[in-house]
């Protein structure tokens, strides 16, 4: 030890210690220009039962490199490249796909997973495992269902988002007009005892102006298999029920006036209160929401507390109706517990839940749901009374 640290050898020692750092070389170094940045993944099932994996690869050339004015991009360049590979599992398909791709596939920035109808019908649980196990993909990727082939959605070139349909799909989910489900959410829901879940449904829309995407409706999965679909209107009810509503407009026609009044939701919270009385399972849904008036076609004065009280009552009914719609279709129609009723019962009555767990499938459609909504109209908007109406003609109550 003493000899090693003689002053004249100290430098040598330090150098020798440093050299092994560089021995590893640039081990798993990959330059960005050697990466195929995957923006979206589509999963389909071939006729012979294999997995068909489609990836949407961003084409950086289309965005603009050096010497080009920013954001212009090279004309004639496809903004994205869609490639497809088939295999027994997703990773198998990915390996096949890699054979056909000159750049290294990189899922680190994968933003959407789109599940095609053919795969959804056979069950999605086993395929989602890849996205939870393989370290590179993000757990925050949004999951969508499409009523056709997932590849077709990836091939859509929307007018916004640099022509990336994956980015457009993610932005749509972020708006929270439909459901917004990430890989993590999906994994959690599949892990629940029922394995029932819902995924937003995405469809390609074509018009003269160009291609686009829209989220319309929801796909309902019972025990990780597709059982049915609900439309846009019913989806809104689902959002109310699962406390996922963020931006919503409610429009009602007041009983004693002509025209409509629109409201914008400021805040809303939904509480699921399960009760078991005399062996009867009941679910109370308590919804509290605060709204602003955004449009008033009628001649009603929004500053009048009596009118406001009436309107509140009417809105409550309107919300109840929306929720009843989804309960009818999903609870009694498809018998899929996508609302988290089971979990709510399990939390409140763990013992009783354990006894009934096996019969939950049978019990769920029979549960009585009581909706108690409480609407508060907070502000009349920027104007008080009806606009463009002489003061004396305002309807007072």
């Amino acid at each position, binding site marked *: 030890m003493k000899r090693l640290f003689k002053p004249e050898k100290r430098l040598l020692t330090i150098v020798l210690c440093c050299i092994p*750092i*560089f021995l590893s070389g640039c081990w798993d*170094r990959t330059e*960005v220009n050697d990466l195929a940045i995957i923006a979206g993944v589509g999963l389909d099932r071939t006729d012979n039962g294999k997995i068909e994996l489609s990836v949407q690869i961003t084409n950086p050339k289309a*965005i603009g*490199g*050096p010497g080009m004015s920013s954001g212009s991009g090279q004309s004639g360049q496809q903004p994205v490249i869609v490639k497809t590979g088939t295999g027994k599992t997703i990773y198998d398909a990915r390996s096949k796909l890699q054979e056909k791709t000159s750049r290294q596939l990189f899922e*680190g*920035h994968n*933003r959407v997973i789109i599940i095609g109808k053919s795969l959804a019908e056979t069950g999605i649980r086993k395929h989602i495992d890849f996205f939870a196990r393989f370290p590179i993909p993000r757990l925050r990727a949004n999951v969508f269902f499409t009523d056709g082939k997932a590849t077709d959605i990836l091939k859509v070139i929307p007018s916004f988002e640099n022509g990336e349909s994956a980015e457009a799909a993610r932005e749509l989910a972020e708006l929270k007009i439909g459901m917004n489900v990430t890989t993590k959410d999906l994994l959690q829901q599949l892990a629940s005892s029922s394995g029932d879940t819902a995924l937003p449904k995405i469809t390609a829309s074509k018009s003269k102006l160009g291609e686009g995407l829209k989220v319309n409706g929801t796909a309902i999965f019972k025990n990780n298999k597709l059982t049915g679909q609900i439309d846009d209107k019913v989806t809104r009810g689902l959002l109310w029920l699962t406390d996922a509503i963020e931006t919503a407009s409610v429009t009602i026609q007041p009983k004693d006036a002509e025209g409509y009044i629109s409201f914008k939701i400021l805040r809303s919270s939904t509480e699921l209160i399960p009760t078991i009385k005399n062996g009867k399972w009941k679910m109370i849904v308590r919804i509290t929401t605060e709204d602003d008036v955004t449009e008033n076609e009628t001649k009603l004065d929004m500053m009048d507390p009596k009118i406001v009280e009436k309107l509140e009552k009417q809105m409550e009914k309107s919300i109840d109706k929306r929720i009843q719609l989804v309960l009818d279709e999903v609870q009694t129609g498809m018998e899929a517990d996508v609302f988290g009723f089971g979990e709510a019962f399990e939390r409140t009555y763990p013992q009783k839940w354990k006894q009934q767990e096996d019969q939950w499938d049978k019990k769920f459609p029979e549960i009585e749901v009581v909706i108690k909504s409480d609407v508060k109209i907070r502000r009349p908007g920027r104007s008080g009374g009806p606009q463009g109406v002489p003061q004396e003609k305002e309807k007072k109550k």
Partner: protein
Amino acid sequence: MMWRIRRKKDKKKKQSALKQSKQEQDPLYTHITENENQFRQIYEDCSDVILHPFSIGGKHQALLIYIDGLSNTEEIDDSVLSPLMTATVNDGEQQVSTLIKNTVAVSDTKEVHTFSDCIQAISTGKPVILADNSQTGFSLGLSKWEKRSVESPEAEKVVRGPREGFVETLTVNTSMLRRKIRSPKLKMQSMEIGRYTKTNVMITYVDGLVDKTLVEEVLNRLNRIDIDGVLESGVIEEFIEDDPHSPFPQTLATERPDIVTSNLLDGRVAILIDGTPFSLIVPTTLYSLLQAGEDYYRRYLMATAIRWLRYLFLVISLLLPSLYVAVLTYHQEMLPTSLLISMAAAREQIPFPALVEVLMMEITFEALREAGVRLPNQVGSAVSIVGALVIGEAAVSAGIVSAPMVIVVAITGIASFTIPRYSAATAIRMLRFPMILLAGTLGLLGIMLGIIMIVVHLATLRSFGVPYLSPMAPMQFNEMKDTLVRAPWWKLNKRPRLTGESNKYRQSSGQKPSPIRGKE
């Protein structure tokens, strides 16, 4: 073996140097002619040394020696030569030395007895008078030479604060300090370093505030220096550092008298060196190297904000290029998606890997900076324009480097100039390159490794016994007031603990101003 031999040779050299000085240590001779001969021999081939024989009152032989250009010739003629030559000498009544003392009208007159005393006086510009039949000579404080006038310091500019900087003349510098601290407690110990240059070095401190052992240590370390010449404070710095191999400076070099003053008042020691405007302050810590003098003159909120900005940019200047390399080659998933895609788009045409690209650009930038410092003013602007064009526009449009890379280099460059002390900035700038290599080989792990190594090194470093990272490590919570933030002056009541222990409080507490105060 080679080492040993060299050491022996060194010893011999030292002895011969001592012998020579021993000869000069001899006392002056009684006879003026002997003295004159001796001096002519010492100053052989020194045409700028003037030996002027004359007679006092026409009776006593005398000799005046001075160096042309170092002494005030007019004064010599008026107040030394003419009174002496016209003096009336009563026979044998008076000693010559008393006569000279009484006749010469110069305030700073000192007796000299040996040749070495004379030589020292003459080389500092003080004329020496020797008289016949006397072993005592006189040195007269009539030195005067050309000096640069006091100007605003070039390397440390301020918006608010004194605009004077040290100059090359030690006496001017000490006078500036004396003007700032008008207390006899301000001590200045003089010392000569350099076998040939005999450079005057001044050790300055405030008695009562400074730790006596610190002064002793400084004197000790300075006394050990045995070199040919001291041309700049940097030479001294390298001889007195605690860890000579560290890239970090362990003394604070400044040319601002106000910074020296504030450090003296904190109980530190300043070393002023003749011939350079830069003085050294010891001990110093990493945080004092990151503080500009202006921090204490600005409003404290701004000063704090700017201090944080400086800390942030310290990290940026050390790490930004290496983070760029690590993230772009190992951790692409860490970037926001759209940023990665635009980075990828920018890098699509680039022929070099990110590591090479960064090294290339950083080295070019360093070269450009170095060239800019050395260039004459007239060419400087031309070079910076060409450099900006080459590094910025041309390299990007030629597809050699990517545009984000240029931004990284530019920000790093700016960041390194936010560090107020040039020597600390260069240390950070140099450490950037090993960090880039580590990032290029091990990614973020490499960066962490590098940071750990730097922090460990900083934690072991000491400057004259004071831990380099203090007051952060060891933690002195009270001193965070002047480290993390710059508390208002009326809150900075205590001196830094490690240097100002002997006199803890610099002001009385409770001086927060308010309109009510003093009215009660």
